Structures are given as C-alpha cells and as structure tokens.
C-alpha cells in the first residue's frame, strides 16, 4: 500500500496497492477521498479483523508529520 497525503492539509491525494483484494481496499480509500476525509479519520478507524483493509491503519500511521499537524 502507498498513500499520498497533502503536504499542507490532511486530505488523501492518491492511493496505490499491489496485493490481494487491492481493488476492494482502494474503494474504501476512494470513498474517503470523495468525502475529503482527513487521512487521520481513516488511520484511526476501527476496521474489522481479519480483513485486508485493516492494513490501512498501519499504512497511514506511516504518514510523516506535515504542516497541517
């Protein structure tokens, strides 16, 4: 998983994934993008275990600090 987040705001700008169920995980991120949801809402979401999409939390936890924080 790879996510691009705005440098001056917390919006998700892009998402790429290679792995099982990548298209399904992408739909969750796309929904957040359409809603202009700050990436932290998705990062902190409680996503059901045992799913591929639960990897979004740890992935987005790697976003480095930006000027929005």
């Amino acid at each position, binding site marked *: *998983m*790879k*996510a*691009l*987040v*705005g*440098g*001056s705001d917390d919006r*998700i*700008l*892009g*998402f*790429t*994934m*290679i*792995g*099982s*169920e*990548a*298209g399904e*995980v*992408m*739909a969750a*991120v*796309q929904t957040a*993008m*359409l809603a202009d949801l700050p990436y932290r809402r998705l990062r902190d979401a409680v996503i059901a*275990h*045992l799913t*591929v999409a*639960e*990897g979004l939390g*740890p*992935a*987005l*936890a*790697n*976003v*480095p600090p*930006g000027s929005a924080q």
Partner: protein
Amino acid sequence: MCAADPANEVSVTVRTPSGEQEIEGSDILVAAGRVPNTAGIGLDEAGVELDDRGYIRVNERLETTAPSVWAIGECAGSPQFTHVSVDDFRIIRDNLAGGKRSTRDRLVPYCLFTDPPLAHVGLSEARSATPGRHRARRAVADERRAADSRRRTKRKAS
C-alpha cells in the same frame, strides 16, 4: 524472438543497438493499444467532428459538435475503462433529463487484475512531484508484513 517451455517459463530476446538482451519470465503480456473505429461511418455528414487522433470531439458534458448528438466511452476519448463508460452513460442520462453533470474532476480508479492485483486512484507519486503541484507526504506499508501478521493471528486463533 520468444521461446516457451513446458515449465511455464518464457524468455524473450530483445535486439537493441547495444546488442541482444535476454529477459526471462513466466508470461508475456502484449499491450497493442486501441484506435477509435470512427472513420468512414458518415460522422462528417452528420456534422460530428473528430480530433486529430480520430476520437469524437466532445465537451465536458459529452456533447458533440452536432446539436443533440452525444458521444460516450472510448470513441469519445474517455479513459478506456468499462467503469468510465458507465459513468459517461450516467452523465448523458442525467443531462438528457435536464441535469448539468460533467466529466470534469471525476476521480477515476483502475484495477489491474494480475495476481496479485494492482489498484490505483488519484495522484501518483510521480505526478505529485511535478513542478507547480503542492507538496505531498507519502506513506508506504508492506503488504507482505500485513499478510504475515494475519497468518500469525490465524494460527493463534486456531
């Protein structure tokens, strides 16, 4: 030149100015590209203009240069995905009913159904790095690590 063997391995020999190079792999994928099938069907007589590459010229509401004629999908130059053609249809349907929908700023995802699949939506890292774009932050996760963690949890649970 290409050779296949029963072990499901293929090799391709590429002739380049600097000599031959052999590439080995499991499969060969050929991307031949597509051209719009718009020539010789009388579009000019109907007043429907094409662009330099043969795509039907449309505005962002998918209206052609002829009044009350719309174009949809690949032949109108839309991104070549089934889901985009479906969205083109929805735009025309709603505009026929008096709406003002357009193709501008739509978020178009794609999924390549390789094994494992590749999915992408929005800006790519390369595009975000082009001059004039705002600075972006990047987060990377290793799916293999996530899968290992899932397997460990599964083992614990069983």
